[in-house]
């Protein structure tokens, strides 16, 4: 069953067409990776799904409801949760309060504190829970933000380059965590260009190139697609 349906979506900025006539379906329960070389329009498409930009044309459905005109907070209330590309946390607030702000609508009292502790431990942040979030390392901030995104217990987790700035070990661990959330039933859409990470987590892959869908399929078929390899190696610049 389709959880997200992007139908004929385009986005133009002045004369520049960043995304053009894209159709994309994310099925419930899968880990879907959106890949493509730099400038392919991945981040723009991500922001369109999240609601940071309105599309120039086309529509976006979540769980069969048209959300094209909804603001991000309304989409989050429907069951999406988002982690942006650059770490985006509340820097002047303590780590625990960051998590608490994400959790407080869902849980309260002792239950909330138990869940805070669980998430802090899961991401190795427990020893730093009283520090200001801005004092954490880059990688720790990425984890804190993933922790906040998870605290919402979303149906759909949207991650924009979650492993940027992480060491290979951290990246691997993040991949395993994402797979474990998926095993519990969470649908995941990841924008990524680290192919090792994509190999580790992806079940289905969509390749974006020059603002259009270039290829889509399961992980194996995409990995063996020579044309995909070509655009990654830079042989094809345009059609």
């Amino acid at each position, binding site marked *: 069953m389709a959880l997200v349906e992007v139908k004929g979506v385009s986005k133009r900025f002045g004369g520049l067409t960043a995304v053009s006539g894209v159709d994309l379906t994310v099925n419930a329960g899968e880990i879907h990776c959106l890949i493509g070389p730099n400038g392919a329009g991945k981040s723009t498409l991500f922001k369109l799904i999240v609601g940071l930009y309105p599309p120039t044309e086309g529509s976006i459905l979540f769980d069969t409801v048209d959300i094209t005109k909804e603001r991000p907070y309304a989409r989050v209330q429907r069951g999406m949760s988002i982690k*942006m590309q650059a770490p985006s946390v509340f*820097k002047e607030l303590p780590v625990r309060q960051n998590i608490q702000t994400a959790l407080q609508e869902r849980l309260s009292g002792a239950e909330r504190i138990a869940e805070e502790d669980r998430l802090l431990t899961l991401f190795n942040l427990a020893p730093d829970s009283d520090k200001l979030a801005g004092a954490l390392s880059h990688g720790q901030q990425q984890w804190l933000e993933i922790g*906040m995104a998870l605290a919402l217990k979303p149906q759909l987790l949207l991650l924009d380059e979650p492993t940027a700035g992480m060491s290979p070990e951290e990246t691997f661990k993040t991949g395993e965590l994402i797979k474990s959330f998926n095993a519990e039933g969470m649908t995941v859409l990841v924008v990524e260009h680290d192919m090792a990470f994509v190999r580790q987590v992806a079940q289905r892959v969509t390749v974006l190139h020059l603002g259009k869908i270039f290829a889509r399929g399961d992980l194996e078929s995409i990995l063996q697609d020579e044309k995909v390899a070509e655009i990654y190696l830079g042989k094809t610049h345009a059609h």
Partner: protein
Amino acid sequence: MFKLLEGPQTLGRGRMFWACFLVVLAGALAYPLFADSYDVGNFAYFLIWIFMALGLCLMWGYGGMLSFGQTLFFGIAGYGYGVLAINMGGGTATIAALVLSVVLAMMAAGILGYFMIWGGINGIFFGIVTLSATLVLAFFLGQTAGPEWHIGPARLNGFNGMKGMDPLTVGDFYIEGSALYYVMVALIVIVYLALRMLVNSGIGNVIVATRENPQRAEMLGYDVRKYQLLTFVIGSGLAGLSGALYTSWGQFITPSSIGLPAAAMPIVWVAFSGRSDLTATLIGSFLLLFGFQTITVYSQQAALVLMGALLLATVMLAPQGFVLGIGKLVADWLRGRRRGDGDVVAEAGRLQSEES
């Protein structure tokens, strides 16, 4: 619910802090027993402005919205109280006039805030739009000298100001002198504690999260505009409370308590005190009001020059605020002295924040 009185958003926790709070409160309550009624009246006068300062602290320090126009709401409620008290005929109706005039200020804040916040105005434009509205109200009221400017029997009276309203009254008893002083102290305690609970609550978490990173807060599912509007309306309602109490205290209000330089005063108090903490704002604003009033007796201009100099000095030397800075130094010094007994204090602090 009372555990919200302490939390990460407010300085001051534990027995030591609340013991100090009670000592100060006891001193404030005992003060009229030792002072003559003229001084008590003057003291009540400083306390009038504290509400406006606390409201701005909430908006600016916690919500990240710097309004330059808090005297707009002060003026709306101040004139509102006058018009209502005159029209409703004094007596116990003055209490209703007080409440209604504060509601009026909050409604005005709701409308202005809606257009600014939903329009995405923030940062410095938030300040200059609110200040523009404030100055226009002051100019307008300044031009209402003619007899045609009246609301019922209440004459607006231009620069000379509106007068003739009753002070707050219950039955036949005028709330003046010591009685007014006690009402002020009670209101300040209530507002101060209520604001502490607000900022340490879940709503407070969202308010400070929005200040830090509005986009992230929205992506946790919060409609941050509603929280900003709420903050703006509460802060402006407190400015309105100051305005209504001011009119009732002196039975008189003029446009000069709205326009320049009056509009700058709340900014000076809160900036000098330390906008990020309610207690620092409470203490600092009181000190500045006391000092300002003392100098004003000799020369109002000199007092205002000093306020300007303090504002300039604050942003150049201590952008986080002088009172807050000194308070933190004292707290560090106390903590340093106790460190000999091991890190018990730090540990206790951590446990406390985990309990909250």
